């Protein structure tokens, strides 16, 4: 999967915005939004929030987890624990990038948040590589990965799945299939 497609999924997450315009309810195919009243917070998907923000039609309220103290605590937990801690949000990386790139003026301590999120990401990716290696080494058949996010999975997906496939084939060498008609002998 292309990372832009993971980001596309992240854009469906809802954020609170404070609009500076008024508009009736909109009946989108995917559900109703609004009504919009100046100064009154309303939930909209990120893709819409960013569009409004670009046109200076709203202020975006950062999601609850996008907060220096909370993220610091999560970073400590992530560094302390061997297993994956619960992610700040299933789309923490994508939302951080999107909101900080397009609405940093609405997010207090944006630079600190960027660094913290990157730290959390790096710690988790290092763990991910470690578990991938142990999965291969132990030749395991199943792993539970509850707290991994889609973007994290996506960075290693093709490599890990291809490797597992190769390993499977090499393992099948040890129990050669019997009389199967072989076309590609020549």
């Amino acid at each position: 999967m292309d990372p832009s497609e993971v980001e596309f999924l992240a854009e469906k997450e809802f954020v609170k915005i404070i609009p500076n315009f008024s508009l009736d309810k909109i009946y989108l195919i995917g559900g109703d939004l609004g009504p919009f009243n100046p100064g009154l917070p309303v939930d909209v998907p990120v893709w819409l929030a960013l569009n409004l923000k670009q046109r200076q039609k709203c202020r975006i309220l950062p999601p609850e987890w996008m907060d220096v103290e909370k993220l610091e605590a999560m970073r400590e937990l992530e560094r302390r624990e061997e297993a994956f801690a619960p992610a700040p949000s299933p789309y923490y990386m994508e939302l951080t990038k999107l909101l900080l790139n397009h609405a940093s003026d609405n997010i207090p301590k944006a630079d600190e948040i960027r660094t913290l999120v990157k730290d959390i990401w790096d710690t988790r990716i290092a763990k991910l590589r470690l578990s991938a290696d142990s999965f291969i080494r132990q030749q395991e058949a199943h792993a539970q990965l509850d707290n991994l996010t889609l973007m994290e999975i996506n960075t290693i997906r093709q490599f890990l799945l291809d490797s597992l496939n190769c390993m499977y084939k090499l393992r099948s060498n040890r129990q050669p299939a019997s009389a199967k008609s072989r076309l590609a002998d020549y």
Partner: protein
Amino acid sequence: MFCEKAVELIRELHRMTDGQLPAFNEDGVRQVLQEMEALYEQNQADVNEAKSVGRADLIPSIKLRHCCLLRNQRCVVAYLYDRLLRIRALRWEYGSVLPANIRFHMSAEEVQWFGQYKKSLASFMRSIGGEEGLDITQDMKPPKSLYIQVRCLKDHGEFEIDDGTVILLKKNSQHFLPRWKCEQLIRQGVLEHVMS
């Protein structure tokens, strides 16, 4: 050794890992087919001799030539098939009209295959969801914004946007256009997406 020509065809394609299409090697294919004919004739002769005068000792050589025949067959078919996969890719990356320098690399039969592929794909796309149809060679990346800034990399002439407005795509001119309208021209290298 036999089958050297056949493997040469494969190497020629394999060297172009990024999916580019080298010129169809008509001569190479013909030479492989000639080698196959010669191998087959020699085998026919040996088989007859083995039967009529009981020369069972010819069998290993017959078998060896047969292996070579199968190898040649595999190489030629794989060569042709891989080229089809590359030609298929052209439909998705260029659109249905190919530039002359690429068409030039295709054999007449490949051009025919491509024509049929285009037709099948078009009727598939036309049939999606009733009368409307859907062009699935567009929307290759998730949408970001409705309009994008583009720069013209070469003179392309007049271009109609959805509301009927016609604009002139002149080299180095910049435009703010509906994203879905320019996707294909960007892929073809006529326009360049300018990021803000």
